[in-house]
């Protein structure tokens, strides 16, 4: 039988995932009504909706596991900036459409094997969340991947922008695959795969897309890190000011 994990460890693991999804979903939703074409004015809120839905499932479960009676909104809205543990990739600002789509591809290509691994999680509740999310993330990989190809192999302008995005996001890839005590305990308990082992799957997704797009992979000399310890970039604070505005202004109300 697999080892078990403490409430604290499982909560910590769930919050990382949940924050990733909330924050990158928030970023996507900022495009709403401002997309380059109507189809994307549909596709981007659609992906954001999936991501917020996944975040909700994870926050709800984190609240249960934590056992302190916090509901999804209390966890999502009422922590301090240093308590958010999303990866830095998720919080990066939208930049142009190439930048947003590449960010989404990276995140989806990381999550797809992670969700797949969690399909057989020893934690039945998480396996259930994964079953739904795994279908959704496949669409995100496809949609973002198609755009990376189109833009990478489109006009000289779009190629230039896509390359700039590859360059700009390079330092934020490695953090996705970090392992630490939390992930080690989670792996040992058979709850989820080790992020460090997902790199080949990530590359198997991103590699062919880059090849088709005519893009070269850029290895960052040093990856940025810190998100899992709540050490974020300066942009997250503004995102949280908007996110939390209502809950902070009107504490304890039902909406």
């Amino acid at each position: 039988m697999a080892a078990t994990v403490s409430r604290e460890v499982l909560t910590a693991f769930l919050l990382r995932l949940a924050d990733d999804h909330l924050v990158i979903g928030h970023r996507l939703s900022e495009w709403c009504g401002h997309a380059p074409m109507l189809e994307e004015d549909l596709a981007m809120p659609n992906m954001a909706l999936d991501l917020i839905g996944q975040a909700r499932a994870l926050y709800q479960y984190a609240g249960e596991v934590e056992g302190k009676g916090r509901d999804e909104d209390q966890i999502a809205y009422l922590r301090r900036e240093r308590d958010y543990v999303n990866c830095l990739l998720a919080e990066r600002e939208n930049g142009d459409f190439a930048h947003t789509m590449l960010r989404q591809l990276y995140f989806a290509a990381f999550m797809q094997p992670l969700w797949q691994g969690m399909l057989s999680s020893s934690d039945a509740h998480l396996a259930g969340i994964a079953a739904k999310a795994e279908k959704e993330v496949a669409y995100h990989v496809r949609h973002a991947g198609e755009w990376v190809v189109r833009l990478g192999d489109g006009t000289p302008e779009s190629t230039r922008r896509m390359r700039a995005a590859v360059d700009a996001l390079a330092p934020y890839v490695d953090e996705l695959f970090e392992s630490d005590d939390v992930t080690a305990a989670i792996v040992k308990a058979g709850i989820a795969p080790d992020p460090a082992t997902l790199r080949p799957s990530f590359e198997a997704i991103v590699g062919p897309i880059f090849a088709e797009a005519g893009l070269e992979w850029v290895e960052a000399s040093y990856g940025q890190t810190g998100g899992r310890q709540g050490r974020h970039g300066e942009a997250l604070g503004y995102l949280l000011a908007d996110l939390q505005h209502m809950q902070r202004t009107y504490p304890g109300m039902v909406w």
Partner: protein
Amino acid sequence: EAFLVAFQARIDAEEKIEPNDPMPEGYRRTLIRQIGQHAHSEIVGMLPEGNWITRAPSLRRKAALLAKVQDEGGHGLYLYSAAETLGVSREEMTEELLSGKAKYSSIFNYPTLTWADIGAIGWLVDGAAIMNQIPLCRCSYGPYARAMIRVCKEESFHQRQGYEIMMTLARGAPEQKEMAQDALNRWWWPSLMMFGPHDADSQHGDQSMKWKIKRFTNDELRQKFVDATVPQGEFIGLTFPDPELKWNEEKGAYDFGAIDWDEFWRVVKGHGPMNRERLAARQKAWDDGAWVREAALAHAEKRKARREAAKMAAE
């Protein structure tokens, strides 16, 4: 002439007109204008609601709002497609919107100032839209009628959702109730204006009725809306900002005060609080997205060329 008479006979017989059917130029033009305007309204309508997605007060409401705004984009898409069956392209329609030549529903030229505005838009604006749209499900032009059936189903869901937001606020803390009342105060009159000028002042009304593009007059629809909406508002304890609003037993409907048509025309003519910003936002999205659209086109052509080259090589 004979064609017009025959066409009118088909209309009178409640036959649906389909894209390849002959139709009078005026009928086509009226439909293009109306469907385009309707599509633009969906698109511009994403902006005031989109304004609260990042600040929605709970995750549940955030998800619902995202879904709603996405639906609106979808409505825009069906409607542009319906208009395209009449021989106008989405690009042409977009350019007419951005140049200010084509209109969109003036209500979206008001700002969403608080979260309650999201409730008020769902309840009142979508509510008014449905009043307009339900008869359009029986519109004489087939593609438009079919698009409206789908749109109406979703809009009525949005309307209930908006009302539910208002109810939650109205039954919530005093600040929430105040927020709901304030939103009603600001959105009520513009909602009534959504039905357009009084029948006597309406320029497109008669011919559209005859062609069964419209099936009720502006004033009829406005009255229906008032009659349906006032009890809903009263039920949740809100007060309508109209001292003349009262039930008229005799006519079996509500009486209500005079609409400020100066305001209506001012906003229609581009001087509402948000007209410039709405168009500027759409213009910016369009301009900033030009390189994306060009790249998508260029890529599609490259693929096609490659496929053809491969086929040639294989032959």
